[in-house]
């Protein structure tokens, strides 16, 4: 842990972190509100999946710094995510 950190970029500012947090909180509030309203599941389910994907992407891109860091990190992470999505899709087939 004592290795000097590599600093290839200035990194996001606190304001960026705060804006991302507010968006995450707002999206979560929308999710909860949608779940309590009597919206048709055929419309609700895709909305939930899109909101969830947006939230997870925001955390990975800004809080885990994939936007600024080496693309190798993103590659290492995204490949198993794609494999999981394919695998989960197959398991949904009755």
């Amino acid at each position, binding site marked *: 842990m*004592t290795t000097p*950190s*590599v600093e290839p970029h200035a990194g996001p500012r606190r304001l960026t972190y705060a804006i991302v947090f507010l968006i995450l909180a707002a999206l979560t509030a929308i999710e909860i509100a949608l779940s309590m309203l009597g919206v048709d599941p055929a419309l*609700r389910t895709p909305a*939930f999946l899109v909101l969830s994907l947006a939230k997870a992407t925001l955390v990975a891109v800004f*809080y*885990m710094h994939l936007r600024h860091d080496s693309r190798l990190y993103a590659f*290492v992470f995204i490949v198993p995510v794609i494999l*999981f999505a394919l695998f989960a899709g197959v398991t949904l087939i009755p």
Partner: protein
Amino acid sequence: MSEHMTSHAEAYRSGRALGLQPLKLGMWLFLASEVMFFGGLISAFLHYKVNNPSTEGALLDVPLVGVNTFVLLTSSFTVVLGLSAIRQGDRRGLVRFLAATVLLGVAFLGGQAYEFVSLYGHGVTLNGSLFGSTFFTLTGFHGLHVLIGLIWALSTLYGALRGRYAADRYEGVEVFGLYWHFVDVVWIVLFTIIYLV
């Protein structure tokens, strides 16, 4: 032997020249394996949810878990604020934000424990039904990850109090943050799949 060591040193320097940090790369590889771990559990849950629908899902308390989700999102925010603080050499800021992260993590686990006790009170148990088995296995393993993250957060907090981190030495905080944010990302997915869809 010395040639072997030289090639290692050259590879290490080459990696750092590309902006790669061995510790961070190792953490990303670990997180990749964690994607597959949770992927298996999530797939099992989804499979049974679609092909063996259960009425027990109606017992889940979405507003309570929504608040818990907000708590975990806030803890991710405090982690990045702590990292931002130490990048600017603000050690007290790092300590403050890590302490807040620990408190939020404890609050999340408290909420999850309350939910588990409540479900057991309604007869939803680990070995009582397919829903109970897949639900408690999935959320239980996530809770275990939060607990491990809490222990790591406390260790990082201890290091921060002892002056282990500085404006030019914060890799340990960053790698802890990667783990904590990943646990957050997994929860974002679980919240949708288990409670909302």
